[in-house]
């Protein structure tokens, strides 16, 4: 507890005593309770935990899509009281607008910015280039593969030049190979456009490959069960002994 004060000062995302329950009275279902969590700028933080431990709810609170029942969340110095305040979001199912082309979807991402029309076009071009998909600029989402759709979704989230990037199991629906490919891709993009990332995943492996820090949420008792700094240099070798030792540690933490 002693260093929580200093943490708060450097915190870029700060969850202060967050609680969330759905329903009221006897029907009430408590998902989160007394969550205190500080994330520093440009940190890549993964949140793992079993289904129903409130990972997604915590993300949605950071994104402003869900209001907490108690406590408050600070992002980049201002309290969160709704979506669209600089939280870029990538959903599990790409959630691209089917009626817009790949380029159109990315442009939707910068609709609230102050850029001029030509500047927006330039930004869209840059981002398409960054995710390596310039050639499908004019295709509709339905015409793209799952991996491409998720890359466009990442580009769309970056288009708003977000303060934080919130990702809810973004690769959960992809096949294993595409998934590994996109993990590397995300790290490459993250090196170019440093953002503070909150990343929810079911995969310990994925969390270990990507993160500076892994938070394990547990349902019994509710709350942060483990908080690990991952200092291995990137790119990480998925067969390294240290990697495996950490894997085991988190696995045990999840099972206990």
């Amino acid at each position, binding site marked *: 507890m002693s260093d929580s004060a200093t943490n708060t000062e450097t915190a870029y995302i700060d969850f202060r005593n967050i609680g969330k329950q759905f329903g009221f009275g006897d029907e009430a279902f408590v998902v989160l309770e007394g969550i205190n969590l500080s994330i520093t700028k440009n940190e890549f933080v993964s949140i793992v935990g079993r289904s129903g431990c409130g990972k997604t709810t915590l993300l949605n609170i950071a*994104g*402003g*899509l869900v209001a907490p029942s108690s406590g408050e969340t600070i992002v980049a110095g201002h309290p969160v009281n*709704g*979506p*669209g305040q600089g*939280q*870029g*979001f990538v*959903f599990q*199912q790409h*959630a*691209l*607008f*089917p*009626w*817009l082309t790949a380029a159109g979807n990315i442009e*939707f*991402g910068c*609709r*609230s910015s102050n850029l001029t029309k030509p500047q927006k076009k330039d930004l869209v071009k840059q981002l398409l280039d960054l995710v390596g998909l310039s050639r499908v600029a004019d*295709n*509709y*989402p*339905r*015409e793209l593969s799952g991996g491409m759709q998720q890359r466009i979704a990442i580009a769309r*989230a970056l288009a*708003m030049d977000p303060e934080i990037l919130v990702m809810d199991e973004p690769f959960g629906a992809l096949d294993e190979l595409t998934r590994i490919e996109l993990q590397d891709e995300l790290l490459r993009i993250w090196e170019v456009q440093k953002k503070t990332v909150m990343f929810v995943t079911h995969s310990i492996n994925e969390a270990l490959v990507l993160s500076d820090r892994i938070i394990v949420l547990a349902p019994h008792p509710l709350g942060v069960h483990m908080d690990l700094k991952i200092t291995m240099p990137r790119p990480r070798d998925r067969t390294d002994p240290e990697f495996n030792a950490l894997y085991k540690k988190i696995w045990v933490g999840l099972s206990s």
Partner: protein
Amino acid sequence: MNELHRRYFYTAAVFISLLLAWEYATGNGYLKPYRFPAPSQIAKAFVELSNVGFPRDLTIWIHVQTTVGRIAQGYVAAILLAIPLGYVIGRVPVLEKLTNPLIVFGRSIATLSLLPLVIVWFGTGELTKVILIAYGCFWTMISNVIAGVKYVDKDLINAARVFGVKGIGLYWTVILPAALPRIFAGARMALGVGFMVIVGAEMIGTIEGLGALIMEARTFYRSEVTIVGMLIIGVIGFLISSGLGRLEKYLVPWDTGLDEVRR
């Protein structure tokens, strides 16, 4: 001859052989002409209808005009009513729950069973026919609009909120385009319903219109005229439907005709 041409060729060949067999069968007394008028008789009836008319002076073109006019009025009225109503009902869960039984009920009542009542209320004039058509189209249309608006992917709405769209803006930027394919499907189905009820709607108080033509022909045992009426209803329905299909491809390119978009 490429694959497509060959397919057309075979279809045409089958069709023509059937017509020839039919012609032969009536000519030789295997089929009664008043039950199955020969294709040549039907063709003759078509010529008679377009020159002299049936009844006299009411040519086929007048019938077509009248019918298309009635369908257009009833159809457009139904759509103009169903889209805004369905949009509101679909977005307000309470309203949706309250109106759902009513809509299932209304949709289940065969339009033509209303004929006697509608005549009592509105007489046997034009209004009655237009109302019957509108009634039939309305339920099909409104069920589809409600479904389209109600089942908009929640992720899409959240995605738009994340990018700063809120309140009324969501209805315009997300819900409308997301529901558009379903609304179009409804519009096409409703048109089909309009054509289905037309014969019944034109049964009473008129000798003008394709439905009336079919009924008149029955009275005089002119089966070949009935068949001309049927065929023309089919052709008009087909033309309008493919017109709507084109409009759909233009307005909803992401959902239809992706091959053409890709080229």
